[in-house]
């Protein structure tokens, strides 16, 4: 049996951010990623260059696109040590 209890309460969600949402024409999927990311960063007050990992969830509508997480990081002006684009 696997056991992850050693990780209990060792990490925390410190910042959250939702972009404008609903029927919102004129902003791309990337634009919404950036808008919500900026709000999450402001929410917790972490220095942007302290973020060294970026995970991005791809909506199924996007199909498969290369390097989506790295592109989000590049637009945010950070240079992560770890990036991954996920499909769920």
């Amino acid at each position, binding site marked *: 049996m696997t056991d992850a209890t050693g990780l209990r309460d060792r*990490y925390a969600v410190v910042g*959250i951010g939702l972009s*404008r949402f609903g029927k919102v024409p004129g902003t791309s999927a990337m634009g919404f*990623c950036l808008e919500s990311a900026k709000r999450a960063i402001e929410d917790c007050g972490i220095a942007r260059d302290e973020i060294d990992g970026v995970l991005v969830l791809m909506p199924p509508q996007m199909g498969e696109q290369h390097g989506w997480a790295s592109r989000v990081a590049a637009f945010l002006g950070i240079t992560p040590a770890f990036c991954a684009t996920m499909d769920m």
Partner: protein
Amino acid sequence: MMQTAVAVLAAGFCRAVLCTFGCQNNPMGVIPQLFGSPFAIPYGDVGAITFMGHLARRQMHEHGITSTDYGHIAVQWRKHAATNPDAQMRKPMTLEDHQNSRLINAPLHLFDCCLFTDGGGAFIVTSTERARDLKQTPALISGLGQVHSSEVIRPHDDGRGGGSEAGERVFRMAGCRPADIDVAQLYDAFTPRVVHDLVAYGFAAWEEVGPLAAAGELTVGGRLPCNTAGGLLSEGHLSGMGHVAEAVRQVRGTSRCQVPDAELSMATGYGGAPHEPPPTVAYTAAILRRP
């Protein structure tokens, strides 16, 4: 996604991980990729709505769940959405409105179905130690669990339906039981999913779900307040980012539909590719705790 962030942090690869998502539905179209298996498409069995119609039929046939049970859930969520100025659907809705809404795919009515949402969400995960110096009350990640299965073709037979292993894992890691959870954001792309999660995660038995929803036990003051920002059904569908944000707000005590003294706040997710052979579905769950 949260589990991946924690794994990357625990491995020592990173100090702080940003998780984000964004989606624009236009001009890509409503169902840009008409996904479906070659065995199902000829019968019009395409996409999530028909799949969830099957799920609802099965719940009704095997467990006596009714459309009215689904309606009580949708109505309750709508009441929660009324407290959320950002929610897409805030107009009051009655059970009658739900029952009279047009059939999209029998037995599912319009108001059994979630919304299409342009938008995005993000959250940041770091160590609990680092979190102490940041602005907000941290939401400690107590438990995480997921399971990926092919239950669509290989029926799950533990009596609780698919996903129960994700529940066992999340509660084992968090060291608590379903009855300890103060508030939950359940993945509610369609109302039958809420019924499913209540049972699969051990919150209720099949026959209890309808009465719980009808008696107002799924709101503040009840047995398990759920989807307090309105859920995917009424707030909007940001692929679960709204659920994470609201689960965190409940821990911080800043929700507009706050559960007093909420300490354990849970969020569930669901996804997969049930129409691509081999059909699979995934269940995910997180339990957050107030420090």
